[in-house]
């Protein structure tokens, strides 16, 4: 555990056309911790998450201001390689999107694209990432069956394993348990808590209780602004801002 800052958002704003989705966000993502980002629909949670691995680049209407520093280097500077960024900063989406391939091929898809060919290396990546995603024991005997035959919770852990196989430094998760039952959710949460010793994790969630369970630090966004950020224990017992209090208590959102 360290108090180093892995990603530093500095007065960062995102515009979609004329609409300002994020307003001057200054927020540190501590290394080897889980940062939870909570807020009602339209608060800018996903916009901020996507900005951290430049997924907004694909949207021609999108414009950004300010800086996002990864290990002190601005990821929006012109010569920063977005592909390399996405290898270092992986993303897990709300809905699991397994490729229509075997479990094995799902996981080695990225590593193969990045040039890894040695079978022993690929085998090791598959086992290591499935174990880290708490999925190995359930699927180790059927690695060559279709990923589409997994349950929703298993598919989501497969997607997490696929990100881990790229050996990233940061994992961004956008409501990763939104469609999952409580047991599957608990497995993902256990995996995240175990993973933070090796990775830095940013978890966007609509489920405030999930942020309370797993996040070390929680940030509350509202209408594109960062209202409050603090240790999760404090946010859920003694929030400083009335809006945070009302949101975490379910009074709106």
């Amino acid at each position, binding site marked *: 555990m360290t108090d180093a800052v892995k990603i530093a958002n500095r007065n960062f704003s995102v515009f979609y056309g004329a609409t300002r989705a994020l307003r001057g966000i200054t927020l540190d993502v501590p290394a080897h911790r889980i940062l939870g980002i909570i807020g009602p629909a339209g608060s800018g949670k996903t916009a901020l998450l996507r900005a951290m691995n430049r997924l907004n680049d694909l949207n021609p209407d999108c414009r950004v201001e300010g800086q996002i520093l990864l290990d002190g280097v601005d990821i929006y500077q012109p010569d920063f390689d977005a592909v390399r960024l996405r290898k270092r900063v992986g993303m897990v989406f709300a809905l699991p999107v397994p490729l229509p391939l075997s479990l094995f091929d799902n996981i080695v898809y990225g590593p193969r694209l990045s040039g890894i060919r040695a079978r022993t290396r690929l085998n090791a990546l598959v086992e290591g990432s499935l174990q880290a995603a708490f999925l190995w024991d359930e699927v180790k005997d059927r690695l060559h069956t279709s990923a589409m035959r997994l349950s929703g919770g298993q598919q989501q852990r497969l997607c997490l394993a696929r990100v881990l196989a790229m050996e990233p430094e940061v994992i961004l998760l956008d409501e990763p348990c939104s469609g999952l039952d409580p047991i599957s959710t608990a497995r993902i949460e256990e995996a995240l808590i175990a993973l933070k010793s090796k990775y830095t994790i940013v978890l966007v969630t609509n489920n405030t209780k999930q942020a309370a369970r797993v996040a070390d630090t929680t940030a509350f966004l509202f209408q594109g602004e960062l209202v409050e950020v603090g240790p999760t224990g404090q946010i*859920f*017992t*003694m929030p400083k*801002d009335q809006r945070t*209090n009302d949101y975490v*208590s379910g*009074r709106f959102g």
Partner: protein
Amino acid sequence: MERHLQREIDKLKRRLLELSAEVENDVRMAVRAVEDREETLAATVLRREAQINATEVEVEEECLKILALYQPVAADLRYIIAVLKINQDLERIGDLAVHIAERGLFLCQQPRIDIQFRLGTMADKAQTMLKKVLDAFVNLDEAAARAVCAADGEIDAIHREIFQQVKTAVTGNAQLFEPLLQILHISRHLERIADHATNIAEDLIYLIEGRIVRHTPEVLTKKPDKPPPPAM
């Protein structure tokens, strides 16, 4: 979901206020039973104990139900935790009223002692503290809660004074040993009632400010950055 939780919290608040009114009434009756040697009043306090205990259990069960079903956070969580603790203090005050009534029943059978103890003043102050802290709970008045904490010292001083009086009186009057001991006990019970009123005040400060001020008297005088107050 939230509207349900708010309804449950409102119901809990009403139940706790009923309990506090009953306990306040018991303390008043117990003190009068001692002062006026009223055996019937003392007996009434003893009879009511079971009801107070039952209400305490009901309030606690309500709190546990709310915690399990709604998993409240922030101001709602602090409110439930404060109610759980205040509930326990109120039940203990109810017990102390019963103890005072029991001592009162004993003293009714004894000749009057010709010594002026400031038990009446002490009882007034303890009852005032109790009344003020319950008002502070209703109004979520943090300043009033702090004033209650500050008043505890006066009661402690009277208790020490009565202890000295009893110590002196018992030396030359061995036959008064038991009634004097009962008076000392009553003084001790009143002093404990004031302590419980102080506990309630400290729980209120936690509810309003989100800070635990027990064991830290220096913090009681400082104004902190407050979290949003509970919307009760």
